[in-house]
């Protein structure tokens, strides 16, 4: 374990404050939705992507078709294709095994701190860049697994009076609200809400898919127009 690993570890450490309660909440919500502990842990370990896990569990407990739960979860994770692309110039020359391991452990938090570090010090050798990346995820992933487990065990004991049905919507609002920082983002969110409500009568939650596509196109179109206007 070199110093690059520990630099990454220190950069990732503050996210523990976010990941631990978030994992706990996922465990509780999954338990309330009817997943057993093995299923909850399998999802948390295989997917390690909180927002998509919440989305899939919510849709499953709404009795949406399986394919809709899967596609919505995957749609939420599409942002990671961007992360993958932007890490490639820095980590693309690593062995296939290390790239696969890095892909598995690619989450919002270690992506954010690693890409910032690589842009600041682009000349660092590949082993140091890899060590930094794995260092940054080291405080995060074990806590995500561990606190999901605690939540899954505790979740069964929480009575319905605590209105945890609403923890999922609140969590999504909390994730999205800080991202509403520009006109295209706000317009996309507005289109998403409006179309989803207007098309809520469509079968198989397919209204959400239409809403998401229209919202993405709205955001992209407005961004393009603003870029042109500013030259």
């Amino acid at each position, binding site marked *: 374990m070199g110093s690059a690993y520990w630099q990454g570890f220190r950069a990732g450490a503050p996210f523990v404050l976010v990941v631990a309660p978030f994992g706990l909440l996922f465990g509780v919500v999954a338990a309330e939705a009817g997943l057993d502990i093995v299923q909850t842990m399998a999802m948390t370990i295989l997917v390690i992507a909180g927002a998509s896990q919440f989305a899939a569990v919510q849709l499953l407990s709404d009795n949406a078709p399986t394919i809709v739960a899967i596609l919505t979860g*995957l749609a939420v994770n599409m942002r990671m294709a961007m992360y993958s692309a932007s890490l490639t110039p820095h980590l693309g020359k690593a062995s296939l095994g290390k790239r696969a391991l890095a892909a598995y452990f690619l989450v919002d938090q270690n992506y954010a701190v690693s890409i910032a570090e690589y842009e600041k010090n682009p000349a660092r050798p590949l082993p140091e860049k890899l060590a930094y990346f794995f260092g940054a995820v080291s405080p995060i992933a074990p806590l995500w697994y561990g606190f999901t487990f605690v939540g899954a065990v505790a979740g069964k004991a929480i009575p319905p009076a605590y209105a945890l049905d609403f923890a999922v919507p609140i969590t*999504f609002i*909390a994730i999205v609200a800080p991202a509403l920082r520009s006109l295209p983002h706000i317009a996309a969110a507005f289109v998403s809400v409006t179309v989803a409500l207007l098309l809520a009568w469509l079968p198989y939650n397919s209204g959400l898919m239409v809403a998401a596509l229209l919202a993405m196109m709205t955001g992209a179109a407005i961004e393009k127009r603003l870029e042109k206007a500013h030259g």
Partner: protein
Amino acid sequence: MDNTSIWITIIALGIGTFLIRFSFLGLLGGKDLPVWLTRHLRYVPVAVLPGLVAPLVVWPAATGGDADLARSLAALTALAIGGITRSVLGAIFGGMAVLYTVQYFT
């Protein structure tokens, strides 16, 4: 919701998410994503999550689908706190606090 569909969702979401993460790093090499595609991908979270949440807020399942003062105020609080402070946890705790408070008094 039956066990089979839960397991299919877990496995498909796990494999699919890994392939998304692995895509460029593992298979496509140093090629850049086309500009039009990154322009759309940037809006994925704000395009999917609000549409997923809106019906849950307007027609909450727990009240049999009737709009509910506590849940509406909680949603607005979370939106305001998250938008102003950019704190995800602050928004979650603030929203849930309003939900419990309003439920207690109504």
